[in-house]
């Protein structure tokens, strides 16, 4: 019977999976991508997948990128799904960004900051012009860059392990609200606790830290453009390696377990009137994520600020609406749901057809309900 719906679902799936694998490997002259190549030469992609995946493993992130053929949403998903099957062995204490081994720190607020500005590796001032010599690049070229880099004058200058926060100076002057003692409060764990709105700030920060870069950017940008008025000043943006400690299994003393590359952004925004008549202080926004992803960190800091405004005064635009922002920035969720519409909806559509036929019928008869 020709009208029977496609049967053989299992075979179809298998063939589709094989087709995907063929697409990735079809040029048999090429050598397979090495994870090491992805980690170094595609470090921007790696950063993005690490932060959206919410699991810091450069090795697994590189494998995910390879397996997902470079699709960031898919690659981040591999990390998330893997995480679901991992038992929790322990928890780190709350770490402060001031412990970071900095490779880049800039402040838009002050020309000179304690410890100095460090431009570090940034694409900000690269002229976006094609370098056609990269079309033919070899190992020799790589070594030359390395040699040049290490021969740069001043390379042997000692720089401190850590730098003070720009915010500390403002805080000392009393221009900022007192710091919440984050170490005292256990942060909300979005992977283990149900979300019930309104959420604590730490939950919002966690959701945004894993947020899809483009989504966080779009929502943050909407506020900057005029659907909101946070008007941030970047007090400090830093990129670097944050040492992670875990309690020693016997002594309970913190032991360094490794370090993770992170981007952290702190913005200062205009002050609010205080109900209790205390002198006005600046307001703050905080953003941080795995890897190097500066646009995401800046937008996250703006959204942290805008949602605080929304919580206090009621949201007057999307970026101030906690539910709107936090339920729509996750790439894994939005991508999954958007693609699910491709799945069969025969039953629901049959039901829709029934309603429209019945309604047309009623309209045609001039039926008076």
């Amino acid at each position, binding site marked *: 019977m020709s009208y029977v719906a496609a049967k053989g679902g299992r075979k179809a799936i298998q063939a589709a999976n094989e087709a995907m694998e063929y697409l990735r490997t079809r040029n048999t002259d090429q050598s397979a991508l090495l994870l090491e190549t992805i980690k170094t030469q595609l470090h921007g992609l790696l950063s993005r997948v690490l932060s959206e995946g919410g699991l810091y493993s450069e090795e697994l992130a590189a494998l995910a990128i390879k397996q997902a053929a470079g699709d960031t949403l898919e690659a981040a998903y591999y990390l998330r799904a893997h995480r679901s099957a991992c038992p929790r062995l322990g928890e780190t204490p709350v770490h402060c960004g001031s412990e970071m081994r900095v490779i880049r720190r800039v402040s838009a607020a002050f020309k000179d900051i304690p410890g100095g500005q460090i431009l570090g590796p940034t694409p900000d001032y690269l002229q976006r012009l094609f370098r056609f010599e990269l079309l033919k690049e070899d190992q020799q070229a790589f070594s030359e860059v390395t040699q040049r880099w290490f021969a740069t004058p001043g390379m042997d200058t000692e720089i401190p392990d850590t730098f003070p926060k720009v915010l500390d100076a403002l805080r000392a002057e009393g221009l900022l609200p007192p710091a919440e003692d984050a170490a005292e409060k256990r942060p909300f764990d979005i992977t283990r606790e149900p979300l019930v709105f309104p959420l604590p700030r730490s939950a919002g920060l966690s959701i945004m830290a894993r947020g899809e870069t483009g989504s966080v950017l779009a929502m943050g940008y909407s506020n900057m453009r005029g659907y909101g008025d946070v008007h941030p000043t970047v007090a400090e943006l830093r990129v670097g390696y944050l040492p992670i400690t875990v309690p020693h299994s016997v002594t309970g003393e913190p032991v360094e377990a490794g370090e993770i590359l992170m981007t952290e952004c702190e913005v200062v925004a205009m002050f609010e009137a205080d*109900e*209790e*008549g205390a002198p006005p202080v600046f307001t703050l926004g905080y953003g941080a994520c795995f890897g190097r992803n500066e646009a995401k960190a800046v937008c996250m800091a703006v959204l942290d600020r805008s949602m605080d405004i929304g919580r206090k005064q009621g949201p007057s635009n999307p970026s101030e609406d906690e539910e709107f922002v936090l339920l729509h920035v996750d790439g894994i969720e939005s991508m999954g749901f958007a693609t699910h519409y491709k799945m069969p909806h025969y039953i629901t559509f049959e039901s829709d057809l029934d309603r429209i036929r019945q309604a047309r019928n009623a309209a045609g008869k001039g039926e008076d*309900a």
Partner: protein
Amino acid sequence: MKPILDVKGLTRIHGKSCDGCLAATGPKVGGNQCPHCGSIVACADVSFQLMEGEILGIIGESGSGKSTVIRLLYMLDQALAGGALLHGGEESAIDLMALNRAQARQLRDRHMGIVHQNPRLGLNYQISAGGNIAERLLMSGNRRYHDIRRIASELLVRTEVPVSRMDDFPGTFSGGMQQRVQIAKALSTRPRLLLLDEVTTGLDLSVQARILDLILELQRELGISMIVVTHDLGVIRLLASRTLVMKTGRIVESGLTDQVLQDPQHAYTQQLVASAL
């Protein structure tokens, strides 16, 4: 006549409030912001009775606290102190200030009605005029479609809205007609108490007059007790048998409307009456 509403010591302060708030504000001081803590005393120690079938007027300038009293009585806001007993019905008197959200909603849906100055607060513009009336009937537990259609069309006839417009959206109506739909909606469950908040403000004089006539007719026909809040002496003169005068959150004068208007005792009332002449 029996009282339907007993209001005692109703107080609402915006802000953190302190012990000095009440003493440091009010008509004698001439302000409602507490100099100690900066809180705003929206209304304080408001007490009055509303009799069955009576229309009580509350008059005052903007910021006098009259709309706060309405918001508190309709349980859209929480009082800091005071109570408001609603009588009538089979059950014993209910303190409106002591209800939880669900109880407040149920009481509002069944026994109270409100007409706002801005019809956008009282009507949903995404649904038809009839749907707005239906919503209130559905909230009060009537789920019969044909009943709801009948009641809604009767109410629209009664409030002089063409029944042919019943299935149109309120946004396509004139200002006066939107107010009539609001009134029809408020009346749909035959409330014991109807609150009218500046219902004619902003309308043409001729439209105002017809709406005020309608309110008077409804009161005579249905015997609904009403509180009318306005800054317009004309509205008070026409509708209210008794009037409260409010200033900086306090009642400064009360009495029969004619008496208050002809022989105002408080300086503020005198000023108000003089300015209207």
